[in-house]
């Protein structure tokens, strides 16, 4: 099964027939989505759905909410994941494997059920509130969910393992002697982190940011369960309009906008990363 001579030029395409059929089917479906979003009820071409999505405040709100929560989630996960990944690097191999196993365990447990776990914890009569009231620390329950705070807790909880995996992998590729050299030349631990470790881990951070943004824009369960109807993110909007309210053409326009936003974010992160690589000579080459 190796290429031998020019007679086999057609061989790779034969291997690719199933994959081509599959990719063709979803590309065709994506084209259909765009087509549907541009079709008016009379069958003509119209940008009306997009105009409504971007100008009617009620329709624009879920996009704005999603972007806001995505940015906050990314910042919070990065801030929480860095200390963990740095700490994992200093661990003994056995301890490190234990922490990795725990993270994999969380990551491969059902997202929906983890959100249900957060309902048990954060609900009005949930574990945290009843514990606080039982100990007498408070007389009335706190509102820990059915608001953006609750959704944010869910989003961070869902995305955090991804960021830790990405940073752990990036930090693992850094040559320790670089940091040791910086320390020997008199750099304080904070300076070494800021000027050596952090720049060298940027490719991993970028990968983590893309992953976290993706899962956050995808989020439908967290806002639906923890937002209690008060927080509508873009995925909820698309689903509710398409299935619940039977406004499919508006939903398709919303979906196309989500896709465009995701593509723009990925391109922006890569553009920033390229500039950064030029300046610091850091690339993400060598990633699997």
């Amino acid at each position, binding site marked *: *099964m*190796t*290429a031998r001579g020019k007679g086999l030029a057609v*061989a*790779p395409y034969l*291997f*690719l027939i*199933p*994959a081509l059929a*599959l*990719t063709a*089917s*979803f*590309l065709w*479906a*994506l084209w259909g*989505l765009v*087509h*549907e979003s541009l079709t008016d009820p009379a069958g003509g071409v119209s940008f009306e759905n997009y105009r409504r999505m971007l100008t009617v405040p009620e329709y624009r709100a879920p996009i704005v909410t999603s972007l806001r929560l995505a940015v906050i989630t990314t910042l919070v996960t990065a801030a*929480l*994941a860095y*200390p*963990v990944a*740095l700490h994992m690097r200093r661990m003994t191999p056995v301890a490190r*494997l234990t*922490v*990795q*196993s*725990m*993270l*994999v*365990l*969380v*990551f491969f*447990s*059902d*997202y*929906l059920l*983890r*959100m*249900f*776990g*957060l309902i*048990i914890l954060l*609900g009005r009569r*949930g*574990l945290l*509130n009843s*514990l606080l009231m*039982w100990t007498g620390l408070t007389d009335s329950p706190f509102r820990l969910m059915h608001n953006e705070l609750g959704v944010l807790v869910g989003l961070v909880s869902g995305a955090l393992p991804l960021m*830790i995996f990405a940073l752990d992998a990036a930090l693992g590729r850094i040559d320790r002697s670089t940091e040791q050299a910086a320390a020997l030349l008199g750099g304080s631990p904070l300076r070494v982190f800021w000027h050596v470790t952090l720049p060298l881990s940027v490719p991993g951070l970028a990968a983590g940011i893309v992953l976290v943004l993706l899962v956050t824009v995808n989020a*439908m*369960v967290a806002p639906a369960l923890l937002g209690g109807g008060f927080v509508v993110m873009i*995925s909820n909007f*698309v689903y509710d309009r*398409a*299935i619940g309210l039977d406004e499919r053409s508006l939903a398709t326009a919303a979906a196309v906008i989500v*896709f465009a936003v995701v593509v723009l974010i*990925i391109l922006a992160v890569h553009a920033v990363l390229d500039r950064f690589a030029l300046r610091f000579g850091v690339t993400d080459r060598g990633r*699997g």
Partner: protein
Amino acid sequence: MSRLVSVLVILFLFAPLIATTLISFNATPTFGFPSQGLSLRWYANVFARPEFWVGFRHSLLLATLGTLAAIVISTLTAVAVVRFRFPGRSLMNALVMSPIVIPEVVLGLAILVWIYAVLDMPGAWALYLLHTILVIPYIVRMIIAGLQGYDINLEHAAMLLGASPFRAFLLITLPSLKDHIMAGAIVAFIVSLHNFTATMFLVLNRPTLPTAVYQYIRTETDPTVAALSTLLLLIPLSVVAVGRRWLGLDRMVGR
């Protein structure tokens, strides 16, 4: 400092799982503290409610068929991409990996409005198609990595000894890719089993396990789902066990 943060982060990530496990043994239909006694009634209820069993079987079927189809397609694709140089090679690589960056609502709605509604494909088929598309990136990435690290001389040796290229691949190369295929298949199976958002667009009236659980959470407030959730922890636990024993955990989280 980073030690403290690490402990708190791990605690934060485990808190939902610990909470569900604790509440699943509650005697009363509440989520509060202190507990009013212990009972296994919610576990009994998991098995008494038909929708969970129906959903679980449907999810298993989807995950099995989707993963098997994806293994075949991915193996062929990986061979083409790793062993041949041809026009469109990197485009093809990007295309099979692309479902990972397509938002789930986009994929779900696109298949619903176009393939299901326009092409009139039966709902069950549209779901199989969706799940195959969803899991292919996880498997193809793994097999490509396996093929790139494989010593092709072994295959040449088999051919020198008289095996046809196909036989040499099947009997010599494929078995040595076993670990990569397994690791990819496990991740793919779980991604499919847990998929919720895209699946919601296409389940129609035949629930999968996550959509059945979602419906239950929306309508009932008792610890039945907590009991189910505790039982389902067996899945990630076995992944960790298999990952540590045979396949390497690093590989499973995409490195």
